């Protein structure tokens, strides 16, 4: 892992600045690595069972998948606005935008539960077939990341309400935001891969 080489604190010139804490980026990278392996596993498992995957891919709810993409992208966008607000010291806008981002995450969770309820209600489990194994594994693994992201957003929301993030120090906010964007980034790959591409 080449990221380890820059540990610990290395002072980059002011112009090139990594937002947030280096530790969160190490964590983000390792999480992304896990997902990369998972995505590749899906793609190669599919290559061995193309027909099965193509058949069952038709049974997942693409509309809800797209709706969730909207929600995550918009949630990410609100969090970007929160960071920008902190940078220009617009303090009331910071918690407001974090909350909106959090609500988008909540929307994602609700939509996902509706989706799962339909699938689990139909008696589908991890053991139904290889496609569903991946569908449930990947989306559930991601789902838990959404929840973790929301927990992080909740924490930084509480901090932001106390006015903790300003143009002088938005460190914690940026770290939380980076994690939340990762959740978004992963879904952007996951959605076409599992729901659409065939």
């Amino acid at each position, binding site marked *: 892992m*080449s*990221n380890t080489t*820059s540990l610990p604190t290395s002072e*980059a010139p002011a*112009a*090139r*600045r*990594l*937002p947030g804490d280096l530790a969160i*980026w190490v964590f983000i*990278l390792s999480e*992304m*690595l896990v*997902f*990369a392996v998972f*995505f*590749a596993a899906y*793609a*190669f498992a*599919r*290559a061995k069972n*193309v027909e099965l995957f*193509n058949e069952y891919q038709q049974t997942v709810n*693409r*509309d809800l*998948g*797209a709706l969730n*993409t*909207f929600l995550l*992208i*918009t949630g*990410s*966008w609100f*969090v*970007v*606005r929160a*960071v*920008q607000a902190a940078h220009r010291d617009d303090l009331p806008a910071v918690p407001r935008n974090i909350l909106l981002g959090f609500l988008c995450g909540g929307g994602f969770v609700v939509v996902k539960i509706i989706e799962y309820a339909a699938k689990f209600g139909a008696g589908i489990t991890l053991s139904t077939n290889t496609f569903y194994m991946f569908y449930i594994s990947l989306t559930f693994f991601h789902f838990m990341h959404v929840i973790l992201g929301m927990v992080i957003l909740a924490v930084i929301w509480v901090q932001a309400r106390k006015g903790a993030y300003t143009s002088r120090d938005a460190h914690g906010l*940026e770290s939380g*935001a*980076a994690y939340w*964007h*990762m959740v*978004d*980034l992963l879904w*952007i*790959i996951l*959605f*076409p*891969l599992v*729901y*659409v*591409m*065939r």
Partner: protein
Amino acid sequence: MDMLKNPAHRAWLVLMIATVITWYLGEVGAAGTTAIVAMLLIAFVKGRLVILDFMELREAPRMWRILLEGWLILVSSLILLAYWISLK
């Protein structure tokens, strides 16, 4: 459109439109090489926007930008490779 001067807002708009395109391709049942390449390309562009404009890595130390964009390239190529195998 003053709003679009902010790269994040621009990115949001592009991401939404791109999502609609992917969803639409699914609706019309697009499949096969062209559809796969198109969707992967869209996903790649979307991922890059998130990395550069949401995660704000455009101005970050080069190593971090390379790591994240490299991840995106790696994942897309692995998927592309697997789908290419499946088409044969």
